[in-house]
């Protein structure tokens, strides 16, 4: 396994709570975070459930999040990055020069809530009297600017919008920045807030479940949405060692690919996903036989799960039956651009604590996915060295990340 890049800190905020401990506890207790959505009126929609993270001020009491007028996602990111830097032991002093620190984030919506605020006001009072301040928070570069300024990041920064693969894609890009020597520290991750725009959009495409999030369950009927923020602090192993950091895991490898098939439907044969997973394993220097846990993309939509199964079957062959796999979207909902990063953090926790969380709501696995060991019923103790996390999104965007136990 390639051991040149390490994850020295993680930050995570989801419906399960704030930080790795709360996340782990929620997974251990098999506690789904779904509730009736509070942030907008769901009347008129067929579905009312989803997952919202705690409000930023509640999640990060006492931390300066930039003021209440700042976009919710940016406030959450401020807290999550702060958490990850503390976890990496960089809360007081960062030995890396500002110009060598980079920020690569993935999101589909970024500050859409600020745009929403403007558009509602515009509809109420008309464009002449609407206040445009919140519209100015919408562009992705505004979020990057605020975060870079807060955390003194003077190097390259970027917002990747690869739909639901955004968070994982950020890690592939970050690995290259470090390996090629362009940066000495990269803060990477993904996020998306809960927003009526996406709720309505996925609803219009008939992708929201009426029966709950049930990945790989026979008769599953769709996904439920969630809000999530996942951040990792990445460094070259030698640099981390030199400053006395204790890595949580290796970021052994990652990959991205395109289906080139359809804008909203996955390739039914999973050809793009297959290439992506194979490339990630190759990048990580591991074989499929070495993978001891798979955090599935597992959205719960009929086509997505089947396509992922076919890709995994092609990559793992008969060995697939021996690899425990689960979809943590059954706890957190689909956090869209955040999913890849949130699930990488969960994969790191699974390796560190030797615990693979089960998929909730699976009583009868889809027979068409026979051969995939979808953990259900209870958590399983694992002694895995390597975990794989998959993310696939609209636009045929795929990303896979391989993490390794330190």
């Amino acid at each position, binding site marked *: 396994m390639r051991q040149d890049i390490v994850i020295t800190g993680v930050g995570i905020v989801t419906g399960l709570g704030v930080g790795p401990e709360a996340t782990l506890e929620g997974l251990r207790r098999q506690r789904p975070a779904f509730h009736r959505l509070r942030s907008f009126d769901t*009347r008129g929609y067929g579905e009312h459930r989803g997952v919202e993270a705690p409000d930023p001020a509640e999640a990060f009491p006492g931390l300066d999040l930039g003021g209440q007028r700042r976009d919710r996602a940016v406030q959450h990111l401020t807290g999550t990055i702060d958490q990850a830097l503390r976890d990496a032991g960089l809360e007081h002093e960062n030995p890396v020069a500002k110009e060598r620190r980079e920020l690569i984030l993935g999101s589909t919506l970024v500050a859409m809530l600020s*745009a929403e605020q403007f*558009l509602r006001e515009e*509809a109420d009072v*008309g464009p002449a009297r609407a206040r445009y301040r919140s519209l100015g928070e919408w562009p992705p570069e505004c979020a990057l600017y605020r975060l870079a300024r807060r955390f003194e990041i003077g190097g*390259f920064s970027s917002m990747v919008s690869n739909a639901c693969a955004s968070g994982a894609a950020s890690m592939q890009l970050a690995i*290259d920045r470090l390996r090629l020597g362009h940066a000495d520290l990269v803060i990477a991750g993904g996020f998306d807030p809960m927003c009526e725009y996406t709720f*309505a959009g996925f609803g219009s495409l008939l992708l929201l479940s009426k029966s709950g999030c049930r990945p790989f369950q026979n008769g599953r009927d769709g996904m439920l949405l969630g809000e999530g923020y996942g951040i990792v602090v990445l460094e070259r192993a030698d640099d981390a060692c030199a400053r006395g950091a204790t890595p949580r895991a290796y970021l052994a490898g990652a990959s991205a*690919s395109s289906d080139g098939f359809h804008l909203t439907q996955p390739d039914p044969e999973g050809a793009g996903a297959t290439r992506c997973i194979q490339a990630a394993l190759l990048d990580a220097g591991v074989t499929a036989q070495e993978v001891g846990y798979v955090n599935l993309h597992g959205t719960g939509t009929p086509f997505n799960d089947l396509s992922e199964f076919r890709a995994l079957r092609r990559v793992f062959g008969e060995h697939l039956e021996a690899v425990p796999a689960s979809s943590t979207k059954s706890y957190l909902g689909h956090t869209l651009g955040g999913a890849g990063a949130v699930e990488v953090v969960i994969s790191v926790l699974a390796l560190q604590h030797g615990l693979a969380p089960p998929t909730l709501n699976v009583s009868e696995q889809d027979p068409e996915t026979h051969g995939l060991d979808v953990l259900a019923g209870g958590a399983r103790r694992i002694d895995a060295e390597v975990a794989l996390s998959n993310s696939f999104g609209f636009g045929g965007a795929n990303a896979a990340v391989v993490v390794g136990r330190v």
Partner: protein
Amino acid sequence: MRPRIVVTGLGAVTPLGVGTAVLRAGLKAGRSCILHRVRTPGEDGGRYPEGAVVSAPVGSYEATVPEAEPAAAAPETTKGLRRAAVHVGFGAAASHEALQQSDSMVPPERRGLVFSSSLASCRFSYRLWHGLLASGAAGASPSLFSEGVPNALSGHLARLFQILGPGHMLGGGSDVGLRALVLAQDTLQAGRADLMLVGAAEELSEIASRGYRKFGVVKSRRADQSPAGLVLGEGAAAIVLERERDVLAAGRTPLLAVAGIRSAQLADLRREASIDQLARLIEPAVRQALESTGDAPLWLALSRNGTLLDRFEARALARVARRVQGRFEPQSRSRVKELLGDGMSVSPFWQLVEAQEHVAAGGQALVLSLSYYGAVSLLHLAPAGSRESSA
């Protein structure tokens, strides 16, 4: 040593029309595409409740792509784009030209792409929102939603041109196109792909025009009344990048080389320290270019767009000129923004096309792009086959 990256194909859709030849000819002839355009609130699909105060039509100077030009120029690329946003069609036509020129035989699995946009599907998002606000859940359009996701552009391009390797879409300010180039270069140098299609696409809309106007940066008066102010432009550009050694081994001829590209985030454009930070970013590239060309003039394209960024940029460049003892004249030689408006993420690529002739004749070129939120990128172009290493 990281392998050197070269450009093997160029494509452009501009307010002048489709194609890099049209762009070059238009720039040489000094053909301005900037017109006064009046946009009406609601033309992007917005609907307002009874009794709401609706603002007067918005008038500003803009440069827009002639209707239907991209589809007419490259009809085979428009398959499946009937419902797509306009900028996707621009991006497809530019990509088609760039890939045709590159004439590379790299298989689909080894091709990747990084595209970018500042405004992306702003018009579609706006229309979907207004549908929602007017009619609730029933007003949400599935096609507006799916075609309005930012990576609809990269997804369509991957499908149209069977680019099956790494594919990424970036959102950001004016320099995001060059940031896409940074990541594409990384992808090639890391060996994840053998060919990268890089580019940007923008589409103007009423909401974008109104937003920029409200922020007080858009040029809305006649030039003789107010020389300052941003003129928005739209269109697309695409370039094909490959490793130089692969291109030469295949007996092909690169168009020009990426001698270096640097990106940074400036802390605060109002502070003196940020001017110095920008000067420190520019200086090594200027020195490197001067070393290669002796004292022959550098071809310089600036970010200059009629906003307060201009003064900031000029001050940083003046510092660099002093530090290199006047061996470099910090004047922009690009006519792109003057004639075609500021195409945001796209402009640096149009400037790259503009610079090609100078570079092909043995010169060096620098393209600087600075965004409102302090993101800055600098691209250094050199003749293919010259000895500069990638910075």
